């Protein structure tokens, strides 16, 4: 049972100690990771995925329930506590969707019957349906991303979930986030999107490779977040209309001043 994850700070890109020395994330929390491009967001997520022990560029150390994870815990996929949705979505595997998923299910010690469930879930997140006999390498960006979201949610079902920039995927990001952040999990979301950033409980601000500060989401941010979600829904429906070749004649929305 994972109660908490502790990130012990290391060094930034200049080799200086990072300002935030320690972050403790508890079960059930959603934490955002924000910062400009190149500020080290993906590296922070990478350190947690690998359960780094002072052995990455940043020299950070990750503890699980205040203890150092064993080598086996860090490397054996059957024991893995972390599921990661990374930005690396270009499949190199020359095989079909079905084969890929059953192979991954085998690695994670999951039942191979879940393959159909993964494809079904992926198809709720993307416009163009994915089929079991599709070759992985021909999937579009949105399809790949949706497939990976469903794979992480069902096959890599782990107590710690790391999500890297879900908004760039051309998929329904709120649905995807809901699918990934199951009950009682520790969730970390790297994002540039204010809608997602304000939905989290806290956010770690990154700068030049180091953790600069941690901001707890304020009450007013929480209510702004709800307003933003409505604007976002409007944008989504407009996007669908444009995609489907419709003509836009009004953008009225109740309660939002445009």
């Amino acid at each position, binding site marked *: 049972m994972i109660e908490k994850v502790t990130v012990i700070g290391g060094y930034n890109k200049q080799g200086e100690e990072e300002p935030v020395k320690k972050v403790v994330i508890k079960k059930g929390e959603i934490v955002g990771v924000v910062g400009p491009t190149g500020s080290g967001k993906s590296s922070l997520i990478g350190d947690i*995925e*690998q359960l780094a022990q002072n052995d*990455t560029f940043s020299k950070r150390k990750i503890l699980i329930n205040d203890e150092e994870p064993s080598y086996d815990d860090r490397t054996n*996929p059957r024991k893995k506590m972390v599921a990661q949705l990374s930005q690396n979505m270009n499949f*190199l595997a020359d095989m079909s969707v079905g084969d*890929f998923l059953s192979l*991954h299910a*085998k690695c994670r010690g999951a039942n191979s019957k879940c393959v159909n469930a993964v494809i079904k879930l992926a198809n709720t997140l993307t416009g163009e349906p994915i089929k079991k006999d599709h070759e992985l390498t021909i999937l579009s960006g949105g399809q790949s991303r949706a497939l990976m979201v469903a794979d*992480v949610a069902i096959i890599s079902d782990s107590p710690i979930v790391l999500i890297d920039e879900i908004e760039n995927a051309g998929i329904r990001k709120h649905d995807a986030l809901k699918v990934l952040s199951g009950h009682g999990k520790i969730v970390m979301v790297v994002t540039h999107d204010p809608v997602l950033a304000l939905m989290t409980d806290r956010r770690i601000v990154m700068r030049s490779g180091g953790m600069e500060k941690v901001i707890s989401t304020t009450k007013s941010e929480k209510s702004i977040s709800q307003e933003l979600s409505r604007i976002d829904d409007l944008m989504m429906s407009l996007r669908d209309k444009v995609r489907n070749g419709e003509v836009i004649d009004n953008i009225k929305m109740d309660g939002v001043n445009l």
Partner: protein
Amino acid sequence: MRMIIVAGTPGSGKTAVLIHALKNLKERGLKSSVVKIDCLYTDDGKKFEKIGIPTKVGLSMDMCPDHFAIYNIEDMIEWAEENNSECLVVETAGLCHRCAPYTVNSLGVCVIDATSGPNTPLKVGPFLSTADIAVITKGDMISQAEREIFRERVLEVNPKCKVIDANGLSGQGCIELAEEIYKSEEVSLEEEKLRHSAPLAVCTLCVGETKVNKKHHRGILRKIDGFQTYQGE
């Protein structure tokens, strides 16, 4: 003398991983010497020398670098002894990866690149299946699912090996490799054998024939239909 034989596909990060591991061993007081075997060109020798490790470079030119490495092993050990080293690391480029340059009592390390696709472990043969340690590099460039599948495939081919996920840029995983080198046992070359025979290579092409027509070829020739014949006297 500990003997570490490191094989791997070109560009998989053998040198980068070794540099991190050897630096760590040096800090722990273990003296190493490195022999780098390549085919036509390498400047990796300079990289090892930069971290203060005696290095010798061998270019096999038009010979198989693994064969070249194997029959030069005695000379390499002698040279490492002259350096007062406790550990000889032989890094070999390899060509077809049908050879496994590991000897029975050496520590056999195979470095394999995760971006080469999940079927690669099934294709490469003894250089992976007879290794003691499989170091998987470049895992940070692919998704977690693909990384896990790659690892599974490596274990399918070689269930007994220890898998180390390493990053040649950050040095991640290299301390684990250093630990294995540190723990490895001394090897004496008397009666030492290869773990796997080198592939059959006795034909006219081996001695420099360049004409492609069938009539020019002699020796043991395997046909694409699976039959093997001997052409010659």
